[in-house]
Structure formats: C-alpha cells, structure tokens
C-alpha cells in the first residue's frame, strides 16, 4: 500500500494494481484510480504549472471542474492528447502521462521567473505592453507569449484513431448519474418509453460514491446504487452511458454527448472507435448536473495541497486516499465540517477548522469537539507557506489582530456551492439570483427541460432523490420520501473579499486558477473602467480557460460586484457556451475525414479517366477530368494537343456532369417561356435551342441547350455547378409564382451519361453503332435531337456543338456510360480519337466566343452585355427578369460589354482577371475599363486569344487598349469574340 492509501476506504480495487508513469517515473495505483488519485496516494501533489506565472500547482478538485492538473497522455505518434485533467483520466497499465507548461521539469521551471515579476503582469498587461513596434507582434511577441502561456503543445502528427458519430432519440434524457439522476431514471423507466442516463464518470452514483457512510432508507448508499443499477440495466427501455459528457445543449432538445470509449483501455487498438459523438434528440431533458464547490479567495490559495474540501472528501471516500497527514480546513460553509469529520474518522489529523463566520451550528461544534478538532471562528487564512507543497499557513483573526502560524500538509477550503447551470444556460433557460445560497438558480425553462438536485438548489441527498423521482415521473405521480442518515446540508455566507492585513496588491489570491487571474486583477479591471462583467471577463480572461470558469465565475462576480458597488444580480452573469468540458477535435470530426469529409461525385466514365492518367479538377461536388497528359507533357502541351486533335479529326469528352432537368406536363412550354429568356412555343419536337436563364434582377444566371422531346416534355441541360440552383430556382417559381401551371420537374442529371463527340470525323465514328436514327445532315441537321439506340441501348442523341466542330452529345442511361465510352474509344482509333478534359473544352469554346456562366459573367452581366440580345425574346409578355431588363441602369450607355482581345504580341497570353486601361502611363489608379475574363493559347490559330468585359466594348471595335501585367503593359486590339471559323462552316462538314 502507498503511504497515503487508507485501508478499507474507497471503492478502488486494491487487488488489481496498475502501473503507469508520470514524467517518466513509475507509479502504482489501483483499478478505479484516476491519475490524480494515484499520484496523491503516493504523496505527490505537484501536477502542473500555472498558465501565466508558472506557479507550481496541485489538484484543486476531484472531477471535471479541475483547473490546475492538466497533463498530456502520450500513446505514441499522433496519439498525444494534451490538456487532459488528471482528475478524470483513469489509469490503466502502461499509461504514460506528462506534465505541461514547464521547462526543463515540473520541479524546476525556468518559466517561473514570471511569478517573481508577477507584479508587473497585471490584467491587460499584454494589451498594454506589446503595442509597439507593431511589426514585432507577429514574429516576436506573439510566439513568445504563446510559448510561455501554458497549455500543452498541439500535436503535429495525424491522429490515426477513429472517431465515430451517430444520432439517437429518446423520450427522456437524464444528464448526471448522481442521486437525483438515478432517482429520475428509476421513475422514468417505469413509463416504458426510451430513457437515456448519461454520466461523465466511469461509475454511476455521483456524490454517493464519495460519501460511503451515507445510508438510504436504512441501507448503505452503495447497496442502493447497486440495486438501482440492476433495475435500470434490466429495463429494456433504459440506456446507461458512463464516461459520456453532455457537451452542448442546442435547439429543440438536441444534446451532444461525447462518449469516451477507450480512454481507459490499455493498448487500445488503432482502427477501432476511440470516442463517439451521440447527437441526441430528446422529448424532454432532466438536468441533474449537481453543484461544484467554490474555492475561497485568499492569499496563497493555490499552493499544491490547497484544495476544495469536497475534493479531499472524494479522494478519501471514493479512492481511499488521504490528501495529507495534517490538514487545516478553511470554510465559510457548513459542508466543510462533514469533509473534516470524514477525514478525521480516517485518522487524518485536522489541525483546525478556520471559519470566517462568528457563529457555527451546535451539531457541528459538537462533532468537532467529539473528534478533538479545534474551531477558530471569525478568522481567515492570511498567508500560506511552502513552494512545491503547502507546509504551513497563517491564521489571522481580524478582530484581535492575532496571527498564528500552524503546520499543515493540506488545506481544505469551502466557499459554498455553485449549482451547475452550464447546459441549462446553453438551452437559454432563465436564471435567478438566490441570496440565501449566494448563487444563480434555474428560473424559467426555454426547452422542455427541468433541473433537479443540487443544480437546482435541492441540496442534500434526500432532497435530490425526491426531486429526481418527481421529475422522472411522466405525469405528476406521487411524492416519494427518502430517509437518509446525512447531516443537514447547512448554510454558508457570501464572501466578497476576505479580510487580510496584507495589502491587496501584494497578495496572490487566485480567482481563476487556470488563467491565473487574481482578486487584484478583477479589482484593477473595475478600477480601469470595466463595469460590465462581460468586459471584466474579457479584460482579465477570468472564466475563459478550458474549465470555463467552473470554479471561478461566481467568486469573480462577487468581487466585481463589490468593486462596482452594485448588487450581484445587477452585474449579471457571463454566458456559458458549449462545450461543457474540453472536447477533442476527433469527436467533432467523427467519421468525416479523408474520403468521408464530403462526397466526391464521379461520373460513370471517371474510372476510365483515372485509369488513363487524367488530371482532375473539382467542379462543384464533381471531380472532372481536366486534361489527359501523355508521358512528358505538361498541361499546356497536353491541352494544345487535345485541341488540335479535336479540330483536325476527333475528340471525345465526358459531359455527364451537365445538369439535366426533365420538364414535363401540358404547360411545359409555357413554363419554359417564363423561366428562360428565349421563346419556346415554336420549337418543334426534335428541336434543340440554346437557353439563357436570368434571375429576377435581369442578370444571367445559367445557360444550356434544351431539347424538346415531345409537345409536353423538355430535356433541359444546365451548367455542372448550376444544376442544383437551377432546379431550386425553377421549383421555387413553380410553387410560388406559377402554381397554376400543370408541369413537373424531375432531376435527371444522373439518369444519363453524356458523351460529347466533336470533330470532322464525329459522324463517321458513331454511325456504325446507331440504330433507328438517320444521321445524314439533311435528316439530322445542327441543333436537332433524335431518339434511338446506340450499341443496343436507348439514347437521346443531340446534334449540338460547344466547340464549333461537327458535334454530337450522346446520352445513354448512366450504367452504360463507361461501356459506350470504351466502345467509341476502340472504334475511334482509326481517327486517332483524342479524349479531352475540361481545359480543352474551355479553350475550344473560347475560340468560338461561347461564354461560360460564372467565368465570363459574374452575376452583373445581362444578355445584352454578353452580346446575346438574340437570345432574349422581344415578343414574350413575361419571363423571369424581363422587367429588370428595362431598368434604366441596365439600358444605359457605357455598360461593360463582352468583347474579344488580341494581343499585339501573339505569344503573350494575358492573365485572367487582368485590368484593361486606355493609357498605361496614367498615374495609379488608372482609369480601368474592365478585365480579362478568359484567356488561352489557341493552337489552331497559333496565337493567344482572350475574352474581356470592357466598358462600352461594342463601340470600341479595333481600338487599341492596354493590359498592365506584372512586368509591363501589353497592347491589345478589341475584336469580336469569335476567333475561329467565324462563319460556322466547320459545323457542317459532311
């Protein structure tokens, strides 16, 4: 047995010894121990260094509220978790823990010089000091401050572990498995409806685990827990979740639970789930989160060995660990007496109980007398001694001025209790100040939620059990009275500044232990003009550490309220935000890493492209083949070759990602007339037309070729990225503006694989495979579509061209796409068929001056601006955007127009986005006329080409303008944006 382990105490299993290391040294603990309890059992209190001053720190608490004892758990490469609370990390065989924020080691920390000069580091120090020179901030001040400031370093290697996530539902979600939560679960279980009970600890029982002498209805609390768990485990409608933290409470009873599945397992395998995020939608939520004891704010209250009285009680009751041999208790609340008595009963000497109050209840004084404990009333602790562990403290009695130094190796403090309102506040539940317990309590609920037990101010075990039982019942059933042998919970007093003979400026009285905020800092903030608690919080950083101010918020509030001179309830409380306790990025990410981060949509032809060396680019959610480089080719060479091959003979392109919408119904043409600028009524069945779509504001929104399959059926195509928004746009108008039309929309993007065949040999290639369609130019001219079969499967065959060459777009049901592609590739060998990607497609269309919506347009371009007035019907009475096109600003002179640009030097390829000016010698900023929208090298033309939006561009034909680029401005001539085959003769090769 370790020196401080008390035989017969605690619920750790002393038959199962477990070895672990802390800072390289091996320690032994028992199954059921945390790192903190096992270290304390060995007499080791020093567990960390503070954030700002690098002061030595031990544990303050025994649970998730712990601000001091943050450690790193090292499980190998990529598996280092920093900032783990030693008080919640269960030990397991081989656990490797390290302290943080110290150099070179925990006992001797160079950073502690900050402490010696702490008088120079008041609140707002960094804001005040590191203002100048500004350039020093990024490179000198910030890295230094970050390095000195104290949390563990973020891991750099990838985390190989798996994190899971899932959704769940229940009737009743109970958060907290102490007496209130268990009683609630027992009552709720009877309804037969799904109940989930969660607790962040490994075992259910809450405070009952730490107070083993308690009896409920005449039986030991442990028996009551065991019996309750037996009932709950048997109930099929109840799910018990331990090691699970409710981290956030969101709208409509949506609660995030993080379950730590293997944090306590030795040699946890890589590849299995380590944590799971459960996203639970509950019909109602019962919050039984308990309360957290409040520290007292006094000079030297942060030495290792100074801790909450309830923590000392927990270490003894749950882990059988004495936190020292000689303890002093310092309190303003009755509950600390019970902690003192528990320790005394385990033969730990209680040197004295120092009570700030002048009156103490008789039963407590009697209890103390029986145990030979001295009580000193109306007294405080004014000083503590010891560096790495408390050695002694000085008792100061303000009325007499008497100072007494007494020896101790532990100091237990209690400033009363703070009900945990964190999740209640996440849910936007109201709170009210309760002067009797000097804390905020839940007020009006915002969700279907209720607080029970200590978090509702129902202090004491019997009260918690009854409240839990009542809340657990679905419909107000009977009251249940529980009999316990507990002492009266008692009362305490508010402490807004303990008396001390030492000047406040020279005291080190910590409020926020994790962020090193002292009483002095808060007073200074108020003195400097910060009156709102939210401002005080941000200026001092009180409550902003990873513990979210669980032990500090109320103390800070009390100090600030006194300094401001306003009652607490007028000062307000800072906002609690999720997560309740620090949450790993893994838990937030869940399964969604690598290929599961977001879907990558691939066409049926994509596997062929991948196998044949395509370079891909993302287009919306799709990945598309960008170009197909041959050995030794860069992008420029590959694209030039692909362009040339297509113009000379035959190119093949996967156009499957184009959006497709089937518009069907007797009013289909009417609907098309309203949604597109073009007229559709006269388009015959079997005809195709380029369609241009505007938004209500008259600007170009999307475009694509539309085919009329039947009087009442259109095959609409959209841009790849535009498919979802065009569908939504159409459906929106159909449902809200044109509900009288009998027409329906079905997305068919993925029903069809689309292969574009372009080049003089296009017809020759497909002819042998097509059945039932006469491909002769007379029977099947440009901009027509036909239905028939290709390779034996149904096809919708469009004769269209986005390249200026003879072109066909073959649509076949998707699952046949790859087979058809491979068939055509094989058959195309005789024509030296060339697969091309999106880059070549862009070049070929630019040579013809065809726009790409979103590249040559930017949401402020009208059809007229783009030189496409021909696509806007003048006869139609209405279409979406028509009224806007008559707006004076859209018809005004001097708008930017889409034109072509040819550089004087044909080898210069302009930069897309480059500005266009009249006179490059003007001082900057020059008069800017517009910008280059598309720019490429054109292999067939042997020169560069560009498209641009230029102010009054249509009236500047043949003008010379200038395009400033990094090294020099280039001369360009304004031309019509059709560079290749302006007469369109190539479309009609036979």
């Amino acid at each position: 047995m370790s020196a401080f382990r008390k035989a017969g105490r605690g619920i750790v299993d002393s038959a199962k010894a477990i070895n672990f290391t802390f800072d390289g040294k091996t320690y032994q603990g028992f199954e059921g121990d945390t790192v903190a309890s096992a270290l304390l059992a060995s007499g080791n209190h020093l567990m960390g260094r503070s954030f700002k001053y690098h002061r030595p720190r031990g544990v303050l608490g025994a649970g998730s509220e712990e601000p001091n004892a943050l450690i790193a758990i090292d499980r190998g490469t990529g598996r280092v978790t920093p900032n783990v609370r030693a008080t919640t990390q269960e030990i397991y065989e081989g656990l490797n823990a390290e302290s943080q924020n110290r150099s070179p080691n925990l006992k001797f920390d160079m950073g502690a010089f900050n402490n010696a000069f702490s008088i120079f580091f008041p609140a707002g120090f960094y804001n005040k000091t590191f203002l100048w020179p500004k350039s020093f901030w990024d490179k000198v001040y910030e890295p230094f401050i970050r390095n000195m400031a104290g949390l563990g370093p973020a891991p750099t290697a990838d985390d190989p572990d798996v994190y899971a996530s899932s959704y769940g539902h229940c009737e009743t979600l109970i958060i907290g498995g102490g007496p209130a939560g268990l009683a609630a679960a027992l009552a709720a279980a009877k309804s037969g409806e799904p109940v989930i009970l969660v607790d962040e600890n490994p075992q259910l029982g809450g405070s009952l685990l730490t107070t083993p002498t308690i009896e409920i209805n005449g039986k030991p609390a442990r028996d009551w827990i065991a019996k309750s768990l037996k009932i709950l485990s048997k109930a099929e409608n109840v799910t018990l979740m331990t090691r699970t933290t409710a981290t956030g409470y969101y709208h409509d009873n949506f609660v995030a639970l993080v379950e730590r599945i293997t944090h306590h397992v030795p040699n946890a395998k890589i590849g299995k789930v380590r944590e799971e995020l459960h996203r639970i939608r509950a019909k109602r939520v019962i919050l039984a989160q308990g309360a957290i004891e409040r520290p007292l704010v006094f000079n030297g209250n942060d030495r290792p060995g100074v801790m909450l009285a309830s923590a000392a009680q927990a270490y003894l009751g749950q882990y059988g660990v004495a936190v020292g041999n000689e303890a002093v208790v310092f309190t303003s609340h009755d509950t600390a007496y019970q902690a003192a008595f528990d320790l005394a009963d385990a033969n730990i000497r209680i040197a004295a109980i120092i009570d700030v109050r002048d009156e103490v209840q008789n039963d407590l004084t009697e209890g103390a007398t029986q145990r030979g404990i001295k009580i000193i009333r109306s007294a405080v602790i004014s000083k503590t001694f010891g560096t790495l562990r408390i050695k002694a403290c000085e008792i100061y009695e303000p009325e007499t001025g008497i100072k007494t130094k007494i020896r101790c190796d532990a100091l237990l403090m209690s400033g009363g209790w703070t009900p945990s309102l964190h999740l209640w506040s996440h849910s936007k539940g109201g709170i009210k100040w309760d002067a009797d317990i000097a804390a905020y309590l839940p007020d009006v609920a915002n969700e279907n939620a209720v607080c029970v037990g200590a978090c509702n101010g129902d202090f004491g075990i019997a009260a918690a059990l009854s409240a839990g039982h009542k809340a657990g019942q679905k419909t107000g059933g009977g009251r249940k009275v529980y009999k316990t042998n507990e002492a009266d919970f008692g009362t305490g007093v508010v402490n807004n500044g303990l008396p001390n003979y030492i000047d406040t400026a020279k005291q080190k009285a910590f409020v926020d232990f994790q962020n090193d905020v002292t009483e002095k800092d808060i007073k200074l903030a108020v003195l400097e003009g910060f009156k709102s608690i939210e401002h005080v919080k941000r200026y001092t950083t009180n409550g902003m550490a990873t513990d979210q101010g669980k032990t500090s918020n109320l103390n800070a509030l009390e100090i600030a309220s006194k300094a401001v001179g306003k009652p607490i309830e007028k000062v307000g409380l800072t906002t609690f935000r999720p997560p309740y306790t620090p949450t790993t990025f893994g838990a937030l990410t869940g399964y969604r890493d690598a290929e599961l981060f977001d879907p990558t949509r691939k066409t049926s032809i994509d596997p062929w492209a991948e196998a044949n060396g395509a370079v891909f680019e993302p287009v919306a959610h799709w990945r598309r083949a960008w170009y197909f480089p041959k050995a030794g080719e860069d992008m420029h060479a590959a694209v030039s070759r692909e362009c040339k091959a297509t113009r000379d003979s035959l190119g093949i392109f996967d156009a499957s990602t184009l959006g497709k919408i089937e518009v069907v119904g007797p009013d289909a043409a009417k609907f098309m007339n309203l949604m597109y600028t073009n007229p559709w009524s006269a388009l015959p069945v079997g005809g195709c037309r380029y369609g241009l779509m505007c938004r209500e504001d008259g600007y170009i929104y999307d475009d694509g070729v539309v085919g009329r399959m039947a009087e009442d059926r259109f095959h609409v195509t959209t841009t790849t990225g535009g498919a979802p928004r065009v569908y939504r746009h159409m459906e929106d108008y159909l449902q809200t503006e044109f509900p009288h039309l009998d027409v329906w929309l079905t997305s068919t993007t993925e029903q069809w694989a689309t292969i574009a065949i372009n080049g003089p040999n296009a017809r020759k290639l497909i002819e042998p495979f097509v059945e039932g369609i006469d491909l002769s130019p007379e029977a099947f001219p440009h901009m027509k579509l036909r239905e028939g079969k290709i390779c034996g499967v149904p096809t919708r065959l469009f004769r269209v061209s986005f390249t200026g060459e003879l072109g066909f777009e073959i649509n076949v049901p998707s699952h046949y796409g790859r087979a058809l592609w491979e068939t055509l590739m094989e058959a195309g060998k005789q024509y030296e068929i060339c697969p091309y990607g999106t880059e070549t497609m862009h070049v070929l269309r630019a040579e013809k001056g065809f726009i790409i919506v979103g590249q040559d347009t930017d949401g402020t371009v009208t059809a007229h601006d783009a030189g496409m007035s021909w696509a806007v019907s003048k006869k139609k009475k209405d279409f979406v955007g028509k009224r806007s096109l008559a707006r004076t600003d859209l018809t005004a002179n001097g708008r930017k127009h889409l034109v072509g640009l040819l550089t004087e030097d044909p080898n210069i390829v302009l930069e897309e986005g480059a500005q266009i000016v009249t006179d490059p010698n003007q001082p900057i900023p020059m008069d800017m006329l517009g910008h280059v929208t598309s720019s490429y090298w054109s292999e067939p033309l042997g020169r560069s080409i560009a498209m641009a939006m230029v102010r009054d561009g249509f009236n500047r034909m043949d003008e010379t303008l200038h395009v400033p680029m990094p090294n020099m401005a280039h001369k360009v001539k304004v031309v019509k944006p059709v560079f290749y085959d302006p007469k369109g003769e190539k479309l009609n090769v036979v």
Partner: protein
Amino acid sequence: MLFDQAVDIPEIFKSERVSVTLIEGKARYNLRVKAADVTAFKKSTGLKLPSKIGSSSLSKVVSCLKLGPDEWLVIANSTQQKKLDKVFEKASKDFICSITDISHRNIGFEVSGELAAKLINVGCPLDLSLTAFPVGKVTRTIFESAQIMLLRTGEDSFHVECWRSFAPYLRDYFKRVMTTRY
C-alpha cells in the same frame, strides 16, 4: 453492354448483425399526377398508389412510395419495365401527369440485420424506432452529406436509395462504420 452500377459491395458488408447489399435489377419512375386525376390514374394503370405522404405499397414486383403531395417513386423489377413503359405511355396520354424514367439515376442498398437502424442512424438524424418509423414508411432524408430516400421494408431491414454518384460515399461510410465498430 457492360452494366456498371457505380459501386461494388465488399465482403465486409456481410456481418452477422448487419449486412449491406446492392439492390439490383430495378426499374424506377418518378411519377407526378394532378390531384384530380389520381383515382382514375390508379384505376387505369392498376398501380396501388398510396395517398398519405410517407407511406408505401410494397410488393415483390412493383412498389409505390409516396414522397410528396403529388409525387410517387415507383420501383419495379426490371422484368416489368417493358410492361410498365407501355402502361405509362398510355397513361401519359390520358392524364395530366409526368412520368420520368430514373432507373439509372438511383442506386439502392438494402441494409438489414438487428443493427440496421443503428447503422443508418450514424448519418441519418431521424428517429428510426418502430413506432416513429414503422414498416412501410418512406421519406427523403439525409445521410450526412448525401441526400437519400429511406424506406423501411421490415422490422430489421431498410431500402436506402441515393443518386448514383453519391453511392460510393454511402458505401465508404457504411464500410468505415462496420470495420471500426461491428
């Protein structure tokens, strides 16, 4: 010609407590019928079109799932396709409706076994208890970033449909869960 359904289903998907298989050989139609025509449409086509949104009529040959106020998804064995094409061709002429073949747009998975609902709940936020989501219930919903259609075909079996290009994402997601969990 080679028929490529975008996904393969590796061995891992056949576990004792949950299995995932590809639903093959189905014809699918998106069916929209003007409210006034529904009764006559049903009589003429012989299709059992359920009237309540989210409900279905299931059979081994033809299942009709009501997804919206005037919208059904008809899933049939592909052996029925020619017959149905004829029936629908006639119906298209006789009624105010929209019938669109989407056989290749969707990929179907069957998820079955005692953990089927749990597997789907990894990415689908709906309550899949038998009371909230009984056998025969159907809805459009999501599985993380993919839109899916979810139909409960039995106490422990579901039919999940998604668009073709989302199928590998679903398959990979299911796979990750099954290899790391079950």
